[in-house]
């Protein structure tokens, strides 16, 4: 057996170990699980009604005051 064959065998050995490590990591990664907690949604109905103009209200007050006098 010459030196070149020894090196080749060593590289094959090293490659197999590295590949097995990567495969093992990927298998472990697939087994990860996350915590799942569903959100809760609530709706609130907003109702608005505009009854007039603030400036109109002031004018109305003045008019009423004037009519009473």
């Amino acid at each position, binding site marked *: 057996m010459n030196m070149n064959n020894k090196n080749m065998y060593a590289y094959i050995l090293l490659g197999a170990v590295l590949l097995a490590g990567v495969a093992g990591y990927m298998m472990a990664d697939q087994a990860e699980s996350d915590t799942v907690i569903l959100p809760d949604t609530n709706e609130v109905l907003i109702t*608005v*009604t505009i009854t007039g103009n603030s400036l109109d209200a002031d004018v109305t007050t003045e008019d009423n005051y004037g009519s009473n006098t």
Partner: protein
Amino acid sequence: MARTRRNDDMMKLAAISAAVSLVVVLVFFGGTLTGNSSTDVTLTTTINATTTCTFNESAVVFGALLLETDAQAPEVGDVIEVVNDGSTIVNMTAVLNQTATSLLGTTTGTSALDIAVTNESGTGSSITALGTSATDVVTLLLPDDSTDAVTLTTTIDVGGGASNVGIANEALISFVCTADVDGN
């Protein structure tokens, strides 16, 4: 000399074993490792819990609104209390289904629907303007009995030029409570 030859044989045996292992790994995981595979897998999910935010009000009715006025509060009793009845810390966002300007029908001035937050735990912006994009209103509301509630008070600013005076208009605020798993 005999010992060297025995070591060489052992090295050869180890390399052949490794090569066989390499082939086995490539056969079973080759596609996964290179990204050149498509595999159907069964996805199994388990829902650990559901957040539970309980609202004491489902509607807020504002009293008579006048144009060009600011910060009119809703009638007494329309303040919303939210209780975290779940088992996890929650954050809450709010979103309107239409803008305040659209809701009020105003064409001039500033129209806005704001929400003031009082949080028994964690933090909350004092006043937040709501819009049609989700806005954070409460963070880190604890599920504990003594500090699990938050009070929301809506106020409204009315612009001018509304054409729908006297007509009741409605909008929906959607509040979404999401678990803060990390608690930060």
